């Protein structure tokens, strides 16, 4: 029986010639990640093991991104706990304010993940690195603690859904629309416990930014991981960002998929996920007037340079609507700097938006843009659960940077193609 991309990476990291779906295996890890929310719990558990050191100082990374720059005293204590631990254990890849960015934008940029890696992160959006052809999945703090201690994690080998991509996206449509369209189609548990494997001739028309965004939200369909077949675009990105050598795993021709779904990218429209689940996807032909109070453009899903370029193109020379607080959050320092050098920040500020230092901030209702009771936000983030961005009676509409920017200008949910017409 042939293996999927994911199964091949897992087999290689478990020291096995082959694996089958359902098999329980112990996997050797190339990277173990945590943030300022999940690492403190992991450190508490790690300390129970009585181990003096982490399994590999180069292969553990902590990124202070959720409640950093410290939003309050308790958050400061949590970051300090991580800082002290990494200092004590000489963990090389500790990223604090000044160096940090949102973890899933930062790690690919720093070249810490390459194709063929097996990565766990105590953050559900760790599945992002599947865009690089790695097996990468979110876990909890205890898994992170054990990963830090022994460099291994247990997994049940997943089955998979194959997404066969064809065609090319239209103007003002991007990776976010593709993944919201898919989640709308299969539901928030449509890929539960499974891999989502992306392949097909349409891949060549998807930038790394689009792929990272799509893989990032695989978890919102319940998936264990999302992974893209490696091509020249991937290899080019890895070469530019990493000194490590990628290992390319292709699915066997006779690999078994539970389902094959064809997606014609040219048919994907601007899509918005309505409250309170990412599966509530609607296109503008099915959207009535939805007035908004806030727009957030950023997060591990859509805080990359290409996202900011797309938003700036729409906002250039226009003013955001009165009473729509528009918050732009470049995902890393490098993106922030590049956006500044390209003049994007000037466009945002002149349009009446604010630009924040990198942080997860409002995405999870942490800080930097919390919603009051009854308020509505259009956000390029990844979840619109009850209370996600603030008050339990506030609402989050998930959308692409293009839709978010157009909505900021219009003061209501807006189709970028209409705003730009």
């Amino acid at each position, binding site marked *: 029986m042939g293996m999927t991309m994911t199964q091949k990476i897992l087999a290689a990291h478990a020291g096995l010639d082959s694996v089958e779906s359902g098999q*329980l295996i112990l996997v050797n890890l190339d990277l173990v990640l945590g943030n300022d929310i999940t690492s403190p*719990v992991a450190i508490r558990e790690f300390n*129970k093991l009585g181990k003096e050191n982490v399994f590999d100082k180069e292969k553990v990374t902590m990124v202070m991104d959720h409640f950093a720059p410290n939003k309050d005293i308790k958050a400061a204590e949590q970051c300090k706990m991580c800082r002290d631990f990494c200092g004590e254990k000489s963990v090389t890849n500790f990223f604090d304010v000044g160096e940090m960015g949102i973890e899933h934008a930062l790690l690919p940029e720093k070249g810490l993940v390459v194709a063929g890696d097996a990565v766990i992160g105590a953050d559900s959006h760790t599945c992002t690195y599947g865009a690089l052809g790695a097996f990468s999945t979110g876990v909890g703090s*205890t898994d992170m603690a*054990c990963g830090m201690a*022994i460099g291994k994690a247990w997994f049940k080998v997943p089955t998979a859904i194959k997404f066969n991509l064809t065609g090319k996206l239209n103007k003002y449509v991007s990776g976010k629309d593709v993944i919201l369209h898919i989640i709308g189609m299969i539901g928030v*548990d449509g890929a539960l*416990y499974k891999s989502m494997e992306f392949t097909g001739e349409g891949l060549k028309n998807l930038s790394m930014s689009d792929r990272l965004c799509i893989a990032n939200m695989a978890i919102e369909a319940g998936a264990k991981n999302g992974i893209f077949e490696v091509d020249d675009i991937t290899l080019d990105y890895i070469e530019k960002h990493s000194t490590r050598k990628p290992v390319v795993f292709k699915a066997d021709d006779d690999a078994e998929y539970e389902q094959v779904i064809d997606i014609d990218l040219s048919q994907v429209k601007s899509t918005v996920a309505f409250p309170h689940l990412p599966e509530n996807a609607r296109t503008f032909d099915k959207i009535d007037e939805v007035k908004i109070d806030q727009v957030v453009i950023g997060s591990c899903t859509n805080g990359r340079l290409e996202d900011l370029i797309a938003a700036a193109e729409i906002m250039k020379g226009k003013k955001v609507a009165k009473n729509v607080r528009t918050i732009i959050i470049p995902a890393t320092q490098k993106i922030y700097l590049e956006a500044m050098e390209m003049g994007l920040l000037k466009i945002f500020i002149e349009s009446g938006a604010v630009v924040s230092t990198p942080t997860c901030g409002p995405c*999870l209702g942490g800080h930097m843009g919390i919603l009051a009771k009854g308020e509505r936000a259009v956000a390029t983030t990844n979840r619109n*659960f009850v209370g996600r961005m603030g008050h339990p009676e506030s609402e989050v509409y998930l959308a692409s940077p293009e839709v978010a920017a157009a909505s900021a200008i219009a003061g209501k949910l807006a189709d970028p193609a209409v705003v730009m017409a």
Partner: protein
Amino acid sequence: MKYEGTVIKYGDNVDTDVIIPARYLNTIDKKELASHCMEDLDTTFVSRVKVGDIMVAGQNFGCGSSREHAPIAIKESGISIVIAKSFARIFYRNSINIGLGIVECPEAAEDIKEGDIVEADMDNGIIYNKTTGKQYKTAPFPDFVQKIIENGGLIQSIADGVIK
């Protein structure tokens, strides 16, 4: 392991943001986390939950964020076991890793009602609703997972050398 308790029931897609809202994630104190458990979904949970109570829910329980604070808050609030139609995968493994009882049983999760008295016999994979007299069979854990649970979680399994 055998559990018996009164049922507190919820619906589908209960996410970790409502189990423990992110605004409380600036602490790792178990009691403090438990004091806000389920707050954005059910403000009465914390005041009415009793030690040993059983949580029953629909599909995809624990979806969303990987925060282990979610199963920690549920466990610390006194819930002995969660029975659901299905679980989100990160929540599922987190629960096993920290030793929160967890069982997938769509029929039981559909039938059992709020306030029912339920017995869950995990050694034999049997859920018995004492209120209605109805019994349900569940699949036992795979041996590997059973070993982690019997050892009191993943940390203890590594400390004891069960997993190397």
